[in-house]
């Protein structure tokens, strides 16, 4: 049995934050009598609330079963080894996405710097120079844009 934080949010704006007992093996949630009494009182004047339980960074919806008990479906346990590393790269957090965006902006600046240097060092403005410079400029703008999207953070 573990203690877990729950949040009960009603449409009227009332939010109840409480600690409950959670059985991680079965997902059964045991509510303290105080919270049960409060929810029963609120049900007289409110619509059904959004009932969520915080567990290992997840917000799990709490379901009421037919026998009146409360239950959550437990998330899958994290993988180990190389899969975890790959998972972290493929599914970055908000802060990691911001760092990726900064890295893209660095690459973009390098590409645009390369574009200016390439144009200035070429002796003649022939076809090959134009294509090379254009590609550097396009890559610079593309990397800037993708970094810009990553900076959004939502």
């Amino acid at each position, binding site marked *: 049995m573990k203690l877990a934080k729950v949040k009960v949010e009603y449409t009227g704006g009332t939010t109840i934050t409480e600690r409950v007992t959670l059985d991680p093996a079965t997902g059964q949630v045991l509510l303290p009598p105080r919270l049960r009494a409060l929810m029963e009182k609120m049900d007289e004047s409110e619509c059904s609330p959004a009932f*969520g339980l915080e567990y290992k*960074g*997840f*917000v*799990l*919806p709490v379901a009421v079963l037919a026998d009146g008990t409360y239950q959550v479906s437990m998330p899958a346990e994290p993988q180990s080894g190389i899969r975890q590393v790959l998972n972290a*790269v*493929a*599914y*970055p*957090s*908000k802060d*990691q*996405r911001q760092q*990726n*965006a900064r890295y*893209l902006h660095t*690459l973009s600046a390098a*590409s645009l710097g390369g574009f200016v240097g390439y144009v200035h060092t070429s002796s003649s403005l022939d076809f*090959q120079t134009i*294509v*090379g410079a254009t*590609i*550097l400029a*396009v*890559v610079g703008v*593309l*990397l800037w*844009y*993708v*970094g810009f*999207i*990553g900076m959004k953070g*939502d």
Partner: protein
Amino acid sequence: MGASIVTLVLGVSIAAFFMWTNHNGQKRDRERDWGK
């Protein structure tokens, strides 16, 4: 010309990879928020 093509392919690949990871991360954040 070959170097320019390599630069273009590399740049687009990097952009596509980070767009993909960004999409994955946002999707996971949304799923966590909604408790799915």
